[in-house]
């Protein structure tokens, strides 16, 4: 199907035919599904100059064909066929697919292995599945596409990264990111949005077995291997892709807050707030109250807007026998639904392959410039516009033409929230990423031994991120009283720029031997040597005193003065920067043996040395074995309904050395040292101990076992696979909680054991094939059981805030006091004590263990209808079995914040004895506001714990391929129109704005996922 699409783009070449004028033979070349084969070459066997290439309808015509000539048809991916033309004028061919050519391969990043002999389990996502999805960060696109892969994005901000877990969370203090490899180059996931996913040909998700073990110390979390598109020989295709989309927030999912009249009513009932007593500074006049009543600002509609997505892309691919190329240039722009947020990427790719006899050479180049505009998110800061949306009083106006900034200074609440729109409009929070990803691969087939080759590949991943942050001098804290400000900060605004450069290089050299000894025996052996090194460098400055609003950048910074009595001593700029390095040096071997093409054994061994670990523990050996048996090739299954049945088993050891503290920081790169950092004290400098050294720090190891079955029935109309896996992490990198009497709260050590055990199930079916109508369904589900096996030698649990890590329970299980509702007699919140009795007293020792924050099951399912040129597909993702603490509510239900915008749930609060409600009293009997006990770090209870299970209609797509008759007239080879809806529906019991919380927290300031409608066209010519 994929290949056919490519061919539909092919130019028809007219051959000049010379020879004896005898007769014209024409006909159609089709495949066994009666689809035209485009670009097939048909020629006279004895004279290959007499020939033609089939057009988009599979038609050909050859002049001057001699009587009785044998016609040969050749087409890529099909078996060649011959026919005696006799004296016929019409000769039609029906080609059979060439199975050798169509063998599916899994790319491991170090090479390709045929699916049949692949002993691990790997998910595969093809270009077709991810094209036209209006998301620019490719990790998000993978959501639900393949079993075992849990992708959750925490943010709808364009360009935001998703959290990706392969088969559960296998680590506590080390990174849980899979390794991403693009064309053999490991790339930094922090810069993922900078890569254009339209260039991807396939994405392989390696989960276990020898393929993962090949990565040794980098493979613990699985590997996502991307191969980009490449040119095909003897074809030339140009393409133009266009997309235009509109995103809008789902206002109905926002937490309900009091409107103006309700807020004023509540304030009067409670005797507090601006409309009651101006927050303690006197009763407002009737006129003032009237003014308030006549103002209603729905702040979410002020900060959010409808946003636009645009994409233009041109591609070109083609090649000759020796040289092939693929190139693309892409422009992608996606506005966020929050004002002044968005993503813009300019990218270009050029892939070259050169083959000359024994020598082959590939050169891949990718360059991108990415601009992003942010807003603060996932925090509880008053100044974050996404929080202000809730906290700003509804009776405040947005604009105030008399104020220097033009924005109203919110003053009805003592919290001094900034005007959300003012901050988002005036401030700058943006970054520009420059990415350059060149790689070069050379391979030489040694001429004196058949099947022996030497290969080397070198690549560099260059990322440079420049971030600008402007804190505008028109904010009231910087303005003088005459300007309507409070002049509380003397900084007069600030401008910061940070430059982060990450450069990683990798060089892999291998000696490979691939040999089919005879029909029965195939051998593949490779020896590798590899070096991987990274350098991380930052530089930043922050300047102050932006006294000229026409120069809100480094040109407008006022130099500072150190003189104590000089006002300019507030303007002393801050500068900083670090450099940090890490490296890996490895040798490894990989091999497989296949007998009768049915039985395969494979294995690998790797030895890694890491710069990160304590010297004595620097080296690690990892290994793997795997086996597969193609049962369906056995005689006893021939001729049955079983078209494919394959059994696999594998075991692999891998390791992890990336710490969660932040890839590419000193703490990450030198974790075993007791590091001292420099500061100043008075007139001298200081050396301050930053961490507790741990000289025995060693690798965190991951042992992965897998047993799986791949099956296909009824001529593969029903296909699928089942995998059972067991991943055990040993010697966990763990921030062991310390007695604070050491001066530190935690120390990085290796302790504990963690297990992820689960089952993956995938099923695809061609349900209906009636004439031109087809209906396909597919889906996958993973159930993952995460369990802490061992914590500390002398302790079976580690409590931290609302979480607990306890033996026998999933990692990050919620750990809360159970809320028992409200006492109807007095309105007090009630709790369960350790004995299960209801009590008004909160007791942290009565905390119970609840579900974990990480989903326990997840997956996706799709349904696609095709009728002639029209197709309609719906794609759902889901995850569940987890609970989260919903701080979105606690942020707006804390009685202490009643002077701010407030939850509408307050209307059902307990007010008088006998009230049956779940919302406690706001005030005590003497009129004092109730204390709020439900913040995450101070007395959290199950009152705000919620089930975050959801099912989301991630993608709904309707597409139409224009009939070839029409497009030929327009001199086009193909034109496809489509409409895509993204995130249209969400089914969940979660009451927050978005149940998809990648990091398992809902702090507040949440940027909801974009709901986008996109229209687009793919043109080829």
């Amino acid at each position, binding site marked *: 199907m994929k290949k056919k699409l490519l061919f539909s783009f092919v130019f028809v070449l007219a051959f000049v035919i010379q020879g004896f004028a005898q007769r014209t033979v024409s006909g159609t070349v089709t495949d066994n599904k009666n689809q035209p084969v485009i670009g097939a070459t048909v020629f006279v066997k004895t004279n290959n100059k007499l020939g033609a290439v089939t057009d988009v309808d599979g038609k050909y015509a050859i002049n001057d064909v001699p009587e009785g000539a044998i016609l040969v048809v050749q087409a890529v991916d099909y078996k060649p066929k011959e026919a005696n033309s006799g004296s016929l004028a019409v000769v039609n061919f029906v080609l059979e697919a060439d199975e050798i050519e169509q063998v599916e391969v899994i790319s491991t990043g170090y090479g390709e292995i045929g699916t049949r002999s692949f002993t691990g389990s790997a998910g595969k996502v093809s270009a077709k599945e991810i094209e036209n999805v209006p998301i620019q960060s490719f990790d998000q696109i993978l959501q639900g596409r393949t079993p075992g892969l849990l992708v959750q994005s925490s943010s709808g901000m364009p360009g935001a990264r998703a959290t990706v877990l392969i088969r559960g969370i296998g680590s506590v203090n080390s990174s849980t990111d899979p390794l991403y490899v693009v064309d053999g180059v490991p790339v930094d996931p922090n810069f993922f949005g900078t890569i254009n996913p339209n260039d991807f040909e396939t994405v392989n998700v390696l989960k276990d077995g020898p393929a993962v073990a090949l990565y040794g110390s980098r493979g613990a979390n699985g590997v996502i291997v991307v191969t980009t598109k490449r040119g095909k020989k003897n074809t030339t295709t140009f393409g133009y892709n266009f997309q235009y989309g509109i995103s809008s927030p789902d206002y109905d999912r926002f937490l309900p807050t009091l409107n103006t009249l309700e807020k004023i009513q509540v304030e009067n009932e409670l005797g507090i707030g601006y409309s009651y007593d101006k927050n303690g500074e006197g009763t407002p006049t009737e006129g003032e109250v009237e003014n308030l009543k006549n103002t209603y600002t729905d702040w979410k509609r002020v900060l959010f807007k409808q946003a636009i997505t645009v994409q233009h892309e041109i591609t070109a691919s083609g090649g000759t026998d020796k040289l092939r190329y693929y190139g693309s240039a892409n422009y992608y722009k996606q506005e966020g639904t929050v004002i002044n947020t968005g993503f813009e990427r300019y990218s270009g790719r050029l892939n070259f392959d050169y083959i000359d006899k024994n020598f082959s050479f590939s050169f891949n180049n990718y360059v991108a410039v990415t601009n992003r505009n942010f807003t603060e998110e996932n925090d509880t800061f008053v100044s974050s516009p996404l929080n202000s949306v809730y906290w700003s009083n509804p009776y405040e106006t947005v604009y105030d033409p008399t104020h220097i900034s033009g924005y109203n200074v919110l003053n009805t609440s003592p919290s001094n929230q900034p005007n959300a729109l003012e901050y988002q409009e005036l401030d700058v929070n943006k970054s520009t990423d420059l990415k350059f990803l060149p790689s070069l691969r050379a391979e030489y087939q040694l001429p004196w031994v058949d099947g022996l080759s030497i290969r080397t590949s070198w690549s560099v991943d260059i990322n440079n991120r420049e971030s600008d942050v402007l804190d505008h001098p028109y904010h009231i804290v910087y303005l003088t009283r005459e300007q309507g400000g409070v002049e509380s900060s003397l900084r007069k605004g600030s401008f910061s720029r940070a430059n982060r450069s990450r450069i990683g290089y990798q060089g892999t*050299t291998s000696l490979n031997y691939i040999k089919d000894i005879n029909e029965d025996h195939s051998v593949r052996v490779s020896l590798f040597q590899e070096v991987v090194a990274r350098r991380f460098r930052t530089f930043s400055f922050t300047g102050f005193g932006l006294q000229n609003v026409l120069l809100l950048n480094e040109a407008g910074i006022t130099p500072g003065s150190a003189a104590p009595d000089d006002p300019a001593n507030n303007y002393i700029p801050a500068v900083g920067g670090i450099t940090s390095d890490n490296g890996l040096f490895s040798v490894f071997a990989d091999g497989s043996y296949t007998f009768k093409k049915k039985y395969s054994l494979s294995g690998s061994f790797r030895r890694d040395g890491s710069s990160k670990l304590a010297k004595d523990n620097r080296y690690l050996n990892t290994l793997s074995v795997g086996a597969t048996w193609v049962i369906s090739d056995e005689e006893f299954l021939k001729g049955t309904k079983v078209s494919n049945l394959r059994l696999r088993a594998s075991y692999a050891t891998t390791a992890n050395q990336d710490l969660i503290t932040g890839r590419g920081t000193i703490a990450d790169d030198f974790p075993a040292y007791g590091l001292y950092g420099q500061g100043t004290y008075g007139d001298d400098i200081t050396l301050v101990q930053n961490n507790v050294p741990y000289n025995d720090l060693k690798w965190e190891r991951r042992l992965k076992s897998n047993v799986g079955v791949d099956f296909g029935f009824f001529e593969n109309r029903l296909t699928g696979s089942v995998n059972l896996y067991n991943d055990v992490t040993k010697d966990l990198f763990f921030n062991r909680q310390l007695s604070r009497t050491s001066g530190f709260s935690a120390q990085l050590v290796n302790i504990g054991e963690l297990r992820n055990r689960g089952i993956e199930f995938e099923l695809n079916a061609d349900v209906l094939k009636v004439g031109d109508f087809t209906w396909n369904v597919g889906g996958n589900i993973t159930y993952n059981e995460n369990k802490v096996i061992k914590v500390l030698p002398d302790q079976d649990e580690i409590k931290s805030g609302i979480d607990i890590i306890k033996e026998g329970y999933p990692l990050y299980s919620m750990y809360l006091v159970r809320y028992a509702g409200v006492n109807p007699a007095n309105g007090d919140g009630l709790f369960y004590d350790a004995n299960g009795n209801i009590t008004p007293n909160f007791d942290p020792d009565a905390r119970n263990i609840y579900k974990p924050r990480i989903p326990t099951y997840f997956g996706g399912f799709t349904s696609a209808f095709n009728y002639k040129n029209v197709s309609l597909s719906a794609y759902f993702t889901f995850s569940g079995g987890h609970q989260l603490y919903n701080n979105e509510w606690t942020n707006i239900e804390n009685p202490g914040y009643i002077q701010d915008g407030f939850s509408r749930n307050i209307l059902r609060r307990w007010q008088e004895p006998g009230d049956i409600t779940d919302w406690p009293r706001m005030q005590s009997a003497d009129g*004092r506001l109730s204390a709020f006990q439900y913040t995450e770090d101070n007395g959290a209870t199950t009152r705000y714990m919620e089930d975050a299970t959801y099912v989301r209609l991630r993608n709904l797509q309707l597409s139409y391929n224009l009939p070839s008759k029409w497009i030929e007239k327009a001199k086009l080879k193909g034109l496809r129109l489509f409409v895509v809806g993204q995130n249209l529906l969400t089914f969940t019991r979660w009451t927050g704005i978005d149940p998809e919380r990648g990091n398992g927290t809902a702090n507040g300031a949440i940027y909801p996922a974009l709901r986008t409608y996109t229209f687009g066209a793919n043109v080829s010519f």
Partner: protein
Amino acid sequence: MKISYIKSFMLAGLIAFASSSCKKVLEPELEYAVDGTRLSTITDFERVLNGAYGGMRSGNYYNFMYLNGADVSTDNLVETSASLGNNRTLAQWQFNTGTGEIASAWIGPYSVINQANSVLDNIENLVEQTPGQKNRIKGQALAVRALGHFDLMRYFAASYERNSSELGVVIKLRSEADFPARVTVKESYDQIYQDLTEAEELLGSIDKAINAGSRRIRMDINAVRALRARVSLYAGDWQDAKDYATKVIDNSGIALSNIGVYGAALTSNAIQEPTSFQAVWFDDFNNSAETIFAVAFNVGQGGPGFFPNDGLNAFTVSEDWKGLFGSSPTNDVRYNITYDPSASPSTNSYLKYSGRYDASTVSIPRNGNVDVKVFRMAEMYLIRAEANFNLGLDAEARDDVRTLRGNRIQGYNAASDNVVDILGEVQLERRKELVGEGHRWFDARRYQLGFDREVTGDCTSTAPECVLPAGDKRFILPIPLGEMDANSNMVQNPGW
């Protein structure tokens, strides 16, 4: 294929290059941090010791928790609308074991103690270049350690009694990550006194002055004695408290600041007067009267002002505190230096620690940047007065109260001031003098006082409670949840 041979050589070359880079790749240079095992010279020790002082600058310590943090929950200060709810849990006595400020008060001094212990663990290896170098470093480290342990006792010890067998704090004598248990109050005091005794002896013979200029930002012998006076005051060792306060008053060469010729008002003239009380708070380093030991806050390092920062003050003085000054409060320089009645409560009304002065205006805006005075002379007079009173030496006690008042109040007439209720007057002076300096919470505990904010109109509208009765369990802070969870040897305070 000639060209193929060339290519083979290229490949071989790349392999050779890859192999040779192994060592370089696996042993990257640690350029942007210092490996702790390499510290050995006198300069290194000085810098690690500086790190201990620098640790006091933390919000966990003298930037907040042990400064105005010990005033927000008392009758001295009241929350303003600029607080953004910060520290409200503490100020309204709603804290529990999980409260952030509690965790902060616990770890703050221990961070500093650890840094001091890093010095003490290795100081014997120091090869002295001049005699007294080791004494200078070691004496300070011991003093810092004693200060840290004592400050922890003030919040967390179950009793202040010198020989109490109730739970004191964890005594840390080495820089190590172990899981220690609390020792008794008596044992805690024992170690503090031992460190102080040794520090005093060592700092008596050193190679050079610890505080080179008049900015006294390191603990010299006077600071050690001042600390000892304070410790003995808490412990009720009145004679020792008196002796050490006297040593500081008589021998330190530091004078009590005064009201000066320009009087009590906050004017630029008064500020520039070298010995004036006003000058102390504007940090004119060239005439630091009064200060015995301060934590240095340089420009750009912020300051101990209230969150958010600079001129906005999250807390201001209470009605109760203002009422202490009677009908003509502006006669008292301490009123003027602490409070600006003309400002709105949330903006520059609380002046103490609002920063170094702007020569042109004296008043706002100020930069919020000023050294934290940990020990100053006025406290020594008040300690001695209280000690003398408890020793039955009323006349001497009265003298110290009168001396202090004479240096603070415009038109003060000592002859007509009878100082009848000596302890009451000392307590009054401590509130006026030391407001916002981290004493009131502990004094209330020592004097068995409670707080009633309703009576004085200082109960904010958001406060769930207005009264904290004397002897309430909350006067002894709970051991924070993080410590309890991490350390199975830890025992919680009574009632928590």
